[in-house]
């Protein structure tokens, strides 16, 4: 239906352009005289204007239009880029981002006008004595309320409004024209007293369908069936019959008050002048906005129902690799079919080996398709740090590296918030005020480093600042103050153990609470989130020299190495990444300490979790029937926990499947996987189970 199929593309592309706009604006702020940057900004604003116009987002178009005017004046040296102007342009950027987000979630641009920003832009021009082009644009006139109908251009000769056609409709019509068929828009009005209007409409539909192909119907056929229409509807048909034929036939049906058959010509739907995308479509779109209220409401409903899905933009080369691998699979399949009849075992084995190679490559290739550079998350940070620095009145520079490091899309979506927390933390708590830095003989500008790099099967992201570092003594004091531990115990804790307290809920060492941080909400959220992603967070800090947060994340969440274990008659998978070792423990080394079962392994005392108990497995093998206790030792941070199992099945690469909406959040279960025999095995959430 209408523009919905383009919404995803629109959102994706707009986000890309907004990102360009963001980095260009940051550059412009550094060097206001740079003409290249200005041109780039102008280009982006112009493109966004065209795109939003095409999609019929009049408010967004209006805003970009005003931006364009100001930028044009700047380009022509009629206005110079002051920090005030750049600030307003940043506000425009935020507003545009809001529009795009609204479009992404609701399918419509929403009702926010951002009048203040538009006024500010107009003000800039007025002050400089530049006449704004935008004030003459039809969009501006029509921008408030639904007054759009006043100036809609009449599209057809007889004053009938043409329906809105999407590319698909136009393609069909093009084919119709090529085949020498007639295309009509038929508007049918039913008698107001008509009782069964759906049935009446059905009769008309049947008649039309018998004599033509219906390519479009407004409201849709389903809505008409459900009587979701007033007393009129419009269809577009391809037919070999003439205009008079339809007029006569439809009029012969009872309870029809009006039939209007409008021939559609190629020119009317713009087949011959597709080139003039920008302005032509802009104006025709404002016209469509103004179709009958009922129709518009129907459109809105459609749009509301639409939510843009998760998409990954994929390099075409990667898709080619996939395609090749799939064709290889087909070749192998054919080969195997041929060998079915022969008794040649070696050829069979060869094919199986070949198949194995191809599936491994296919797996790699598919994984790569899911990979997205971390840039997708990083690119919003320079702007964020700029704003924070202004707010805190500090000089902060953000240095990023390794933006092209790739992570699975699912991970990318999740790490944004934790990173924002850490960066804000560094800017607020880490970096000192100007005076303090001057006193300490540190460089005036504080630096925050954001680095990403791959390390084996992990991606490491570091957030480092050259600020004051974490005050360990303050943590000690705070622990005692909060009554978390006695002073004696605090005295025995290592620096690392003390820092761990920072990740506890509601623990903040900040003296004053600012808007940004210090409420003690944050680090615990960061840790929870990262661990939920199968990652870890570490902290390195040096008093007076700075703090470094190190986040390690698995490359992908979809496929992991796992250890399959058997408990009773059930099979479970444990993520290999969390397993430290597997041991057979003599029962003499299973003890009770403080009412808790522990195992003694070498010189370590490790708490024991009996999986059969926490997972409610009734047919697990009792201890009496076992020679020793098989335990899988998992690590969570620095701590170890031993899980008891009945037996080990082996190591296997498993594909993680979600348990779905109904089962998500089941205690101790992280997901499920499908085993070679088609049965389902659950994946144990070792982080949740570890003590």
């Amino acid at each position, binding site marked *: 239906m209408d523009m919905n199929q383009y919404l995803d593309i629109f959102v994706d592309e707009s986000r890309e352009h907004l990102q360009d706009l963001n980095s260009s604006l940051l550059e412009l702020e550094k060097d206001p005289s740079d003409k290249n940057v200005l041109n780039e900004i102008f280009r982006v604003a112009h493109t966004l204007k065209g795109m939003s116009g095409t999609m019929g987002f009049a408010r967004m178009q209006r805003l970009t239009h005003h931006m364009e005017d100001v930028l044009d004046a700047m380009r022509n040296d009629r206005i110079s880029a002051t920090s005030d102007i750049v600030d307003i342009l940043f506000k425009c950027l935020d507003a545009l981002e809001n529009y795009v987000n609204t479009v992404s979630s609701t399918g419509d641009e929403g009702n926010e006008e951002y009048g203040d920003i538009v006024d500010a832009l107009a003000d800039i021009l007025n002050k400089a004595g530049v006449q704004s082009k935008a004030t003459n644009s039809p969009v501006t006139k029509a921008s408030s309320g639904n007054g759009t109908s006043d100036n809609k251009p009449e599209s057809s000769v007889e004053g009938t409004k043409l329906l809105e056609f999407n590319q698909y409709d136009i393609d069909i019509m093009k084919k119709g024209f090529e085949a020498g068929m007639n295309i009509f828009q038929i508007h049918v009005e039913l008698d107001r007293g008509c009782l069964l209007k759906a049935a009446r409409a059905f009769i008309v539909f049947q008649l039309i369908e018998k004599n033509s192909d219906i390519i479009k119907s407004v409201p849709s056929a389903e809505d008409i069936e459900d009587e979701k229409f007033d007393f009129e509807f419009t269809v577009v048909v391809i037919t070999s019959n003439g205009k008079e034929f339809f007029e006569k036939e439809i009029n012969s049906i009872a309870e029809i008050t009006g039939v209007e058959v409008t021939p559609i010509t190629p020119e009317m739907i713009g087949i011959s002048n597709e080139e003039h995308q920008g302005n032509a479509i802009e104006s025709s779109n404002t016209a469509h906005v103004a179709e009958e209220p009922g129709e518009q409401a129907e459109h809105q409903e459609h749009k509301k129902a639409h939510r843009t899905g998760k998409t990954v933009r994929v390099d075409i080369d990667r898709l080619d690799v996939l395609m090749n691998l799939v064709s290889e699979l087909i070749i192998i399949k054919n080969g195997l079919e041929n060998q079915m009849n022969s008794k040649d075992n070696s050829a069979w084995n060869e094919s199986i080996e070949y198949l194995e190679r191809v599936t491994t490559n296919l797996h790699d290739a598919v994984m790569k398709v899911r990979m997205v550079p971390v840039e997708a998350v990083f690119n919003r940070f320079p702007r964020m740090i700029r704003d924070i620095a202004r707010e805190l009145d500090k000089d902060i520079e953000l240095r990023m590296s390794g933006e092209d490091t790739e992570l699975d899309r699912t991970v990318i979506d999740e790490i944004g918030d934790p990173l924002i927390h850490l960066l804000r933390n560094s800017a607020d708590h880490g970096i000192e005020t100007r005076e303090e830095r001057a006193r300490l003989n540190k460089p005036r500008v504080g630096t925050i480093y954001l680095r990403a790099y791959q390390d084996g099967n992990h991606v490491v992201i570091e957030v480092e600042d050259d600020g004051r570092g974490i005050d360990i003594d303050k943590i000690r004091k705070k622990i005692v103050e909060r009554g978390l531990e006695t002073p004696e115990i605090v005295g025995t804790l290592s620096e690392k153990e003390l820092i761990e307290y920072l990740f506890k809920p509601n623990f903040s060492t900040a003296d004053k609470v600012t808007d940004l941080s210090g409420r003690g909400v944050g680090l615990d959220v960061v840790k929870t989130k990262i661990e939920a992603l199968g990652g870890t967070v570490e902290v390195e800090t040096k008093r007076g020299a700075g703090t470094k947060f190190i986040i390690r994340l698995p490359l992908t969440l979809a496929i992991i190495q796992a250890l399959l274990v058997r408990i009773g008659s059930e099979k479970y998978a444990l993520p290999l990444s969390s397993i430290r070792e597997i041991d057979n423990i003599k029962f003499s080394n299973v003890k009770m300490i403080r009412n808790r079962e522990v195992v003694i392994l070498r010189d370590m005392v490790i708490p024991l979790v009996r999986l059969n108990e926490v*997972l409610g497995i009734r047919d697990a093998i009792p201890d009496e029937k076992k020679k020793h206790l098989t335990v899988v030792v998992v690590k969570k941070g620095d701590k170890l926990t031993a899980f008891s199992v009945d037996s080990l099945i082996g190591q296997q690469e498993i594909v993680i499947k979600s348990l779905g909406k109904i089962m998500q959040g089941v205690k101790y279960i992280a997901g499920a996987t499908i085993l070679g025999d088609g049965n*389902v095995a*659950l994946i144990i959430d070792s982080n949740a189970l570890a003590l």
Partner: protein
Amino acid sequence: MVSQISEKESNKYVVFQIGDQEFGVDIHKVSIIEKYMNITRVPNTPDYIKGVVNLRGEIIPVMDLRTKFGLPEKVPDEETRIIMLKINDITLGVIVDSVAEVVDFTEEEMGSITSITNDRSMDYVVGIGRIGDRLITVLNIEKLISELTEREQGV
């Protein structure tokens, strides 16, 4: 598409048996009916959740309607079926004793429930369909499913 107009008032229902009672579900909400298959138990879930199954690569939770309605459990046999119900992208399998047929009810044939009983299954009933002297209890699938998702989110 248009041809459905004339049938608008009557709906098709899949009829299945649990014990000696006959139930119906709107056919539009049934995605597929499977024979009984291996179910993997999921710990820490209510007893009427039997576990999950692998339905062509998708993990689908399965509920035992017998347990849910407070009836004794029954060993699955040749007749046992899992009806996969789908509403708003959420799929739930329900175990039933057997699936009988597909029937049509018109609105008039669907009486609403007037008698209040203590039967737990009555909480999930939208109406009772009558075919000859058979009474078919039409279940409220939305309620069954939304209850489950809400329960999980509440945890």
